């Protein structure tokens, strides 16, 4: 692979951030109606919506993982193993995705 693992984690971090930034206004709009909008909740029962919800949660976990990596690199004393923070970020994301998938 041409690019190192940190490059990929940073790219996922940025793309997930953009997706979340675009998603949030819609999320707030839906929640602003209060959760007891039965028609709306019926709509969220659709499999496509469930998959999209799962996708959003995975993006959030990925962004969190990548973000923790950045904070560790910038604020903790430098060690060579910090390059493997990529692995931690990835593990976090996968773990979260699995947890939610099992729950859905």
């Amino acid at each position, binding site marked *: 692979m041409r690019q190192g693992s940190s490059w990929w984690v940073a790219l996922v971090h940025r793309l997930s*951030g953009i997706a979340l930034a675009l998603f949030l*206004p819609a999320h*707030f709009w839906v929640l*602003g109606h209060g959760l007891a909008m*039965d028609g709306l*909740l019926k709509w969220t029962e659709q499999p496509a919506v469930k998959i999209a919800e799962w996708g959003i949660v995975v993006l959030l976990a990925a962004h969190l993982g990548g973000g923790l990596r950045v904070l560790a690199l910038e604020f903790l004393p430098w060690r060579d193993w910090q390059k493997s923070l990529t692995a931690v970020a990835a593990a976090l994301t996968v773990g979260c995705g699995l947890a*939610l998938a099992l*729950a859905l």
Partner: protein
Amino acid sequence: MRAVRSQTLLWVAQRASAAVLGACVVVHLATIIYAVRGGLSGAEILARTRGNGAWFAFYALFVLAVTVHAPIGMRAVLGEWLGWRGRARDAVLLAFAMLLGVMGMRAVFAVFA
């Protein structure tokens, strides 16, 4: 204020809000997974959240942190990937921040008040 100083403070705000969001997101994700696993309906969730002062405060803080974090993040994206820099970009991002803040607090009130 010198540009370098304000840009540095934007970075500080980004990292500080990231730290706050780190904690908030973990709680939020755990809560979602718990609610989904429990098969809670909208009405059931609302029964637990309405009038809950602690959750209200938590999510208000969450919204505030997001209002700081998301626009500053998008600032880098707009500048580096779209070549968009200068006053216009900052104006748009400020509007985005206000949009998130208003809609976010509206949602917090709807669910927790």
